[in-house]
C-alpha cells in the first residue's frame, strides 16, 4: 500500500467496485444487518440548516434527502440522481428552475412531502440565525415559491453553471409542519434536533447523547426500504480506543485519518478500505501584512519572490508521502481533486532547493560566513508559524517543514497553540505564518470567503493572510457567473494559475477520505467527500451475518 500511485489506487477502487457489484448480483440480499459506524464527536443534533460538522452530515444524509443527490462523480454541473424531486425543468431563459416532487414521498410521520417544505427549507438555510455554511452560496437564489403542492419553483437573478446544484443538492429538505413554529435560534436545541422527522431511508430510533445514535430502516420508504435494518453511530472520541474497538469487532466502519492506524486496520483480513478524493486541504499561509502594523507589507512575506523561494525549497511530494503514505497527496492549490472544476493541470511551483537558495541570495537574504541562518541587513530570515495542537497531522508535518527550510538557511519557529487561541490569532491576523486547513466546497463559490480582496478587506473576513489580487477575483467571479461549463472551467483555471503563481501560501497536502469497512458488508456507491452516500444500499449476505445482524427490527 505504501507505494501506491493515484492511478493504481483508482484502478484498485474500480476493480473492487466491479468485484463487489458482481458478488451483489450473484447473491441474494435479504434485508437485515446492523452497521456500527464510529464517530468522534458528540454531534448534538442533525437539523440540516444548522449543521456545521462533517459527522452531523454523515448522520443527516441517512435521515433526510435533498431534491437530488450529486452523482457518483461529484460533478456540480450535471449527473444528479433524483431524490425527493423526480424531475425538473428550466423556464424563462434558464433563470427559473421548476422541480416536480415525487408524489409518493412521505415524511417519517406519514405526512406527504410538499413544495412548501422546500420553501421553508430555503428560508432556514439562508437565515443567518442558523448559520448554515451553505448560506453564502445560496444567496445566488432570489427566492423559492410554490406553484402547487408538488411544484417548488426556484428563481435566480442570473444564469450560472451551478444553478441546479445550488437548488437541488445543497439543501436537505425539512418538514414545514414540524419546524415552522419553532423559534429559529433554538432549532438546533429543539426536540427535532435529536428526534428528527425526515424523508430519508432511515429514521431516528434512539439518541443517547455521547454514546450512540440508532437509526432503523424505514420499511415503507417510497424508494424502497434500505437493505440494512439499522445503522448505529457509536461515539468513540479517542482514536486509539477506536482502533482497539475496531480491531476487536465492536465497530464496522470508520473514516481513518492516521496512516499508521490505516495500515494496522487494513492489515486485518476481515476489514477492507476504499480511498476517495476529499475536500480537506492544508497549507502554510503567509501573512502578507505586518501583524503589528497592518498598513505595511510584511517584512519577509510581502515579497512574492521570497514566498515562491520558500515554496521551491520544499519537496512536498516526499514530505506528504513520508507522513501520510497513501492517505494524502500534494495539494494543488486552494482546491482539491474532489472538486469537479479543480484544474489538475495547472503548473505548480516545482521543488528546486538549489534554485530556492539562489533566489534568496539574489534577494539579499544571504548566509554570512559561519552562520546557519540567512540574513539581510543584519535581520535573520526567521519567522514563526502558528499551528493548532489539536491537529496531529499538522503538528507532525510542521517539524518536517521546519527541517527542510533549515537546510536552506531559513529558521521557522513553531508556535503550537490550542485551537481557540489559534483561531483567535487567525481572526486578528496576528501571525507571521499559520499552518491553516480548510474544507473546500464542492463548488468553487467557497473560495470567495477565503481568498478574495473583499474577504481581505472585511475585518471579520476569513482571508487571514490578506491576499489581494484583482486578477484572481475577476477570474473567479467570471467562472462563477459564466454561461457555459467550458467558460467556467477556463476562468477557474486562470484563477488557479494566478493564485498559485502569487504563492500566498505553500499548498501542502489534501487529505483523502479513507473509510475502512468490515468485509461482510457489500458496499454501494461512494461519492467523493461522502463515502456514506450509499449506506442505504449496503447489504450483508445471509451466510456472513453475525449475532448483531440478526436482531431484526
Amino acid at each position, binding site marked *: 500500500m505504501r507505494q501506491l500511485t493515484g492511478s493504481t489506487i483508482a484502478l484498485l477502487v474500480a476493480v473492487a467496485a466491479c468485484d463487489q457489484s458482481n458478488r451483489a448480483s450473484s447473491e441474494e440480499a435479504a434485508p437485515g444487518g446492523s452497521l456500527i459506524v464510529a464517530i468522534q464527536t458528540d454531534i448534538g*443534533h442533525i437539523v440540516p440548516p444548522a449543521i456545521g460538522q462533517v459527522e452531523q452530515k454523515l448522520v443527516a444524509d441517512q435521515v433526510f434527502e435533498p431534491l437530488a443527490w450529486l452523482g457518483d462523480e461529484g460533478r456540480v454541473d450535471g449527473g444528479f440522481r433524483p431524490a425527493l424531486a423526480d424531475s425538473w425543468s428550466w423556464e424563462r431563459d434558464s433563470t427559473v428552475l421548476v422541480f416536480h416532487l415525487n408524489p409518493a414521498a412521505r415524511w417519517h410521520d406519514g405526512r406527504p412531502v410538499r413544495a412548501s417544505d422546500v420553501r421553508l427549507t430555503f428560508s432556514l438555510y439562508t437565515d443567518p440565525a442558523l448559520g448554515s455554511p451553505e448560506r453564502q452560496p445560496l444567496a445566488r437564489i432570489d427566492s423559492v415559491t410554490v406553484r402547487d403542492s408538488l411544484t417548488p419553483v426556484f428563481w435566480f437573478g442570473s444564469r450560472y453553471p451551478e444553478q441546479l446544484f445550488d437548488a437541488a443538492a445543497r439543501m436537505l429538505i425539512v418538514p414545514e409542519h414540524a419546524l415552522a413554529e419553532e423559534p429559529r435560534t433554538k432549532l438546533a436545541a429543539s426536540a427535532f434536533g435529536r428526534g428528527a422527522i425526515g424523508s430519508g431511508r432511515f429514521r431516528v430510533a434512539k439518541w443517547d447523547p455521547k454514546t450512540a445514535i440508532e437509526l432503523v430502516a424505514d420499511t415503507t420508504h417510497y424508494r424502497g426500504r434500505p437493505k440494512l435494518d439499522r445503522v448505529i453511530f457509536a461515539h468513540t472520541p479517542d482514536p486509539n480506543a477506536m482502533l482497539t474497538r475496531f480491531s476487536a469487532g465492536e465497530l464496522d466502519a470508520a473514516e481513518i485519518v492516521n496512516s499508521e492506524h490505516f495500515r494496522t486496520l487494513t492489515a486485518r483480513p476481515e476489514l477492507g478500505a476504499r480511498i476517495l478524493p476529499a475536500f480537506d486541504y492544508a497549507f502554510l499561509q503567509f501573512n502578507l501584512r505586518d501583524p503589528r502594523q497592518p498598513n505595511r507589507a510584511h517584512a519577509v512575506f510581502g515579497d512574492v519572490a521570497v514566498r515562491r523561494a520558500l515554496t521551491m525549497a520544499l519537496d512536498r511530494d516526499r514530505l506528504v508521502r513520508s507522513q501520510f503514505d497513501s492517505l494524502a497527496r500534494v495539494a494543488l492549490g486552494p482546491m482539491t481533486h474532489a472538486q469537479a472544476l479543480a484544474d489538475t493541470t495547472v503548473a505548480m511551483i516545482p521543488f528546486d532547493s538549489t534554485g530556492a537558495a539562489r533566489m534568496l541570495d539574489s534577494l539579499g537574504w544571504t548566509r554570512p560566513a559561519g552562520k546557519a541562518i540567512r540574513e539581510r541587513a543584519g535581520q535573520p530570515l526567521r519567522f514563526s508559524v502558528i499551528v493548532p495542537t489539536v491537529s496531529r497531522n499538522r503538528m507532525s508535518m510542521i517539524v518536517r517543514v521546519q527541517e527542510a527550510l533549515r537546510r536552506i538557511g531559513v529558521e521557522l519557529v513553531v508556535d503550537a497553540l490550542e485551537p481557540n487561541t489559534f483561531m483567535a490569532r487567525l481572526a486578528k491576523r496576528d501571525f507571521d505564518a499559520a499552518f491553516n486547513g480548510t474544507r473546500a466546497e464542492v463548488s468553487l463559490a467557497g473560495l470567495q470567503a477565503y481568498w478574495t480582496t473583499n474577504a481581505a478587506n472585511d475585518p471579520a473576513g476569513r482571508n487571514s493572510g490578506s491576499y489581494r489580487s484583482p486578477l484572481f477575483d475577476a477570474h473567479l467571479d467570471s467562472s462563477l457567473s459564466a454561461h457555459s461549463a467550458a467558460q467556467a472551467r477556463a476562468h477557474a483555471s486562470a484563477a488557479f494559475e494566478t493564485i498559485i503563481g502569487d504563492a500566498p501560501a505553500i499548498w501542502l497536502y489534501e487529505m483523502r477520505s479513507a473509510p475502512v469497512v468490515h468485509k461482510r458488508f457489500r458496499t454501494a456507491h461512494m461519492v467523493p467527500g461522502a463515502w456514506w452516500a450509499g449506506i442505504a444500499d449496503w447489504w450483508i449476505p445471509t451466510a456472513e451475518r453475525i449475532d448483531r445482524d440478526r436482531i431484526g427490527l
Partner: protein
Amino acid sequence: MRRFLARRLAHGAAVIVIAASLSFALVHLAPGDPFSGSPDGFAIDPETARIRRSEYGLDRPLLQQYLAFMGHLAVGDLGRSIRHGRPVSAVLADALPHTVLLMGTALLLSFAGGVTLGAWQAARRGSRADRVAGTTSLVVVSLPEFWLGLVLLLVFVYKVPILPGGGVVDLMHDSLSPAGKLLDRARHLALPSLTLALLGTATIARYQRAALLDVLPQDFVRTARAKGVAERWVIYRHALRNALLPTIVLAGLSLPTLLGGAVFVEQVFSWPGMGSEAAAAFSARDYPLVVGAALLGAVMVVIGSLITDVLHAAVDPRVRPR
C-alpha cells in the same frame, strides 16, 4: 454537632461561590470564544457569530456578564449551554448519574482494595512480598489514566475479549432480561471503573500501610498481643481500625483527583459523564457549561469533604466538636 455542620456548610458555600467566580473569569479571559470556528476548516459566518454573541450576551462588558451570571446563579439558573442549546442544568443532569456511578464504583473499589493491600503489606513489613507490592503500587500511581485505560482496553477487549470497550450498554440491551440488563451495565462499567480504581487502590494502599505501621508499635497493640490475641486479629481488628482515620480523609480528598481522572477515562471508554462533557465544553468555549461543570465539581468536592469531616468526627472522638 449542629454548629459544626453549619460552619462546614458555610465554608462550603464560600468555596462554591469562589470556584464559580474563578472559573467564570478564567474561561472568559482565555483566548477565543464559542463562535470563532474550528481549525479543521469550519468557520462560522461573521453575521451568524454576531447574532449568537448578542443572543448569549457575550457582546456586553465582562463585568456586566459576571453580574448577570451571579444574579441567575442566585436563583439556581446556570444558563443555557452554547454547544447543546439546552439549559446547563439539563446537560449536567444527563451526565451526572454516569459520573456518580463511575466515581462511586471506583471509590468503593479503590478504598476496599487499598485498605486490604495496605494492611496486607504492613503485616509483612520488609518482606519480599511487601517490597514487590510497594514497587508495583508506585509504578501504578505514576501511570497516566488514559494510558492505563488504553492498556486495559487492549488486554480485555482485544487480546482476551471478555469485556466491552465502550459505551454504557450493549446494542442488544433492550432485549435482555432484567438480570441480563444489570449484568450488561456492570460489564460496561468494569473497565472504566477498574482504570480509576487501580490508581486509587495504589495510592490508598501506600497511605494505609504507612498509617498501620505508625499504629502497630503503640501500647494498645502491644497489650492485645500480650493478652494472647492472634496476630491476624490484632492487625485487622485492633490496629487497622485506628489506622483508618488518615485513609478516610484521603478517600474524601481523592474526589477531585477522581473527577480529573474521569475526564480522560470517560474519553477512552466513551463514557457519557461529566468529565468528558466539561473537557468538550472547554474546548468549545461553551462558557455557561464550563462554569456549570466547575460549579458542580466544586459542590461534589465540598460534599466529599463534608462527609469526610463527619465520618472523621464519628470515628475519632478527639476531633468531635464540643
